[in-house]
């Protein structure tokens, strides 16, 4: 656990060679990490595939922004409220959707999330500010802040007791929260509650005949993962106080499913790995241009350079979706346990390789590192 914390908190350093060591993307890594960890509690443990978790992300964001507008620019009440409100939403949605299982459950959650999304765009405009998105304004009341100080000039920014929550401090605050909620999910995985959820995934009928009322277990797992999503939404708003309805769209739910499956469903670290890969692709790969490619292949003869650039450019920049799609297909087809399984297999192979012969290890280490990334 302390190793995990160290790895997360030192991300600004070890991400440098990947070109991802700036706060904006680091924040995304950890915030979507929270989202995926929570999603994994539902999908990974119980096997219930929810297509509606983006709704909680959106609810969390709106709640947080409203808290900034009405109460205080401090992120503490905003985060607590976004967790609570999305928890309430999750109870309502889970209560209805969990009447069914399998594909019907997925469809119900999808319908619910799309309903939230469309409502946010239409009738709920007074609350959500529709297409423009909910923003802070100078004239907001901010009751708690007003108790202590007069309104300053210009828009105030979000803080944690005076610490700015954008940039690197924003990353560290989010990272600490992610480490805390990761620890909580670790406890769930090792608890009797976690084991019962795995058993429900394995054979729900057996659970009933063994004397368990499975409904409240599923609902609890659903609400916990909804609250994780709400927390992630709150954090998104805390680092950038703006909430738009597009956060609730089903593609956002699809993204978290993709992250979880890519990394490894039901594993502790898998979803985090998935988050890093997808967010990395989305932010870094998509920004690679032809010029970058030319300089990358510059050492080659011109004709080879040009043809390689032509081929590679299909996979970077605008084409990052293609790369991701291919990677996803590869994972689903050959590594159903996710990339984490791939890493594990490689490690085991390496281990047995080392035990057999320790004569030429350097070459193998290279492939291992590639896989690990």
């Amino acid at each position, binding site marked *: 656990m302390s190793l995990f914390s160290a790895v997360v908190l030192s991300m600004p350093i070890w991400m440098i060679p990947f070109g991802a060591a700036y706060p904006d993307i680091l924040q995304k890594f950890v915030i979507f990490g929270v989202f995926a960890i929570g999603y994994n509690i539902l999908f990974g443990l119980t096997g219930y595939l929810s297509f509606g978790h983006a709704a909680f992300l959106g609810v969390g964001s709106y709640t947080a922004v409203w808290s900034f507008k009405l109460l205080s620019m401090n992120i503490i009440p905003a985060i607590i409220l976004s967790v609570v409100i999305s928890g309430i939403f999750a109870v309502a949605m889970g209560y209805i959707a969990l009447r069914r299982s399998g594909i019907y459950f997925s469809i119900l959650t999808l319908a619910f999330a799309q309903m939230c999304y469309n409502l946010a765009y239409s009738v709920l405009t007074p609350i959500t500010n529709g297409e423009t998105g909910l923003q802070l304004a100078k004239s907001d009341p901010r009751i708690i802040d007003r108790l202590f100080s007069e309104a300053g000039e210009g828009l105030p920014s979000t803080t944690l007791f005076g610490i700015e929550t954008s940039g690197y401090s924003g990353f560290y605050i989010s990272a600490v929260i992610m480490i805390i909620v990761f620890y909580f999910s670790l406890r769930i995985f090792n*608890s009797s*509650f*976690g*084991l019962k959820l*795995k058993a429900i995934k394995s054979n729900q009928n057996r659970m*009933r005949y*063994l004397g368990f009322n499975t409904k409240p277990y599923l609902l609890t797992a659903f609400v916990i993962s909804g609250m994780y999503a709400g927390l992630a939404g709150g954090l998104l708003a805390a680092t950038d106080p703006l909430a738009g309805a597009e956060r609730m769209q089903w593609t956002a739910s699809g993204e978290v499913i993709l992250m979880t499956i890519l990394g490894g469903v039901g594993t502790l670290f898998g979803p985090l790995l998935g988050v890093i890969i997808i967010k990395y692709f989305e932010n870094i790969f998509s920004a690679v241009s032809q010029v970058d490619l030319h300089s990358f292949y510059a050492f080659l003869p011109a004709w080879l350079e040009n043809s390689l650039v032509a081929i590679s450019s299909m996979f970077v920049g605008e084409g990052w979706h293609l790369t991701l799609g291919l990677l996803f297909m590869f994972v689903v087809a050959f590594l159903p346990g996710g990339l984490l399984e791939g890493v594990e297999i490689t490690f085991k192979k390496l281990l047995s390789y080392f035990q057999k012969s320790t004569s030429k290890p350097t070459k193998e280490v290279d492939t291992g590192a590639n896989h690990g990334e």
Partner: protein
Amino acid sequence: MASKPVLQVSNVLKTFGGLKALNKLNLSIEEGTVHAIIGPNGAGKSTLLNVCIGQLTPDTGSVEFDGKNITGKAPHEISQLGISRVFQTPQIFEELSILQNVMIPALAHLDGQFTFNAIKDLNHRRDVQDEAMRIIEEMNLIDQLDDRAGAMSRGNKRRLELAMCLVQKPKLLLLDEPTAGMARADTNQTIEILQKIKASGMTKVIIEHDMNVVFSLADRVSVLAQGTIIAEGTPQEMRESEIVKEAYLGGAKI
């Protein structure tokens, strides 16, 4: 044996479409006995068990267990009252280890139908672990403790399922063909185990095709045909009964 019935099935009618799977069936199981139910295929044996554990609700009639009416109750409620069932095809948690498979019912027995404990590490639940280990040892599954349950042989899966039921210390254990599809050696081992639990005085209802098993275990035998009990008595009486031979054995000598 004139003790009170632990399970009382009265006038139970269950139809599927036009088919009367159970036709005004009456059955009472006395406490502490091993009661075998035999009958030809399609006689309604499995339907009877399904009604007893709440998987099916009877159209009319009632099922009483331990003095309580359990007709129409949910499976988990019935299980918590003390009925466990071994299924015809083993119903286990294939993806989990043997130890986990047995710990889950132990949790149901110790913690009830719903408890939320997401913080305490299961490795610190000594009571659950001890209980599970004791049964696993009794079932000779101890060498495979951490194996994935799904990877075991069919005979071992059945023994695992039996272990899962026994760890709950049920008042009534329902066994649906516990030796079906087993090799001879496995069958004998299962009989041995069942005889061992027989000594503990647990009431058991056993559906079986293998007459060896029936005659070496049962105290009483009921013969089920076309949804009703057509005869009941000691194994010896049933072996000699003409009605039984007619209905079930087609007149063949056993």
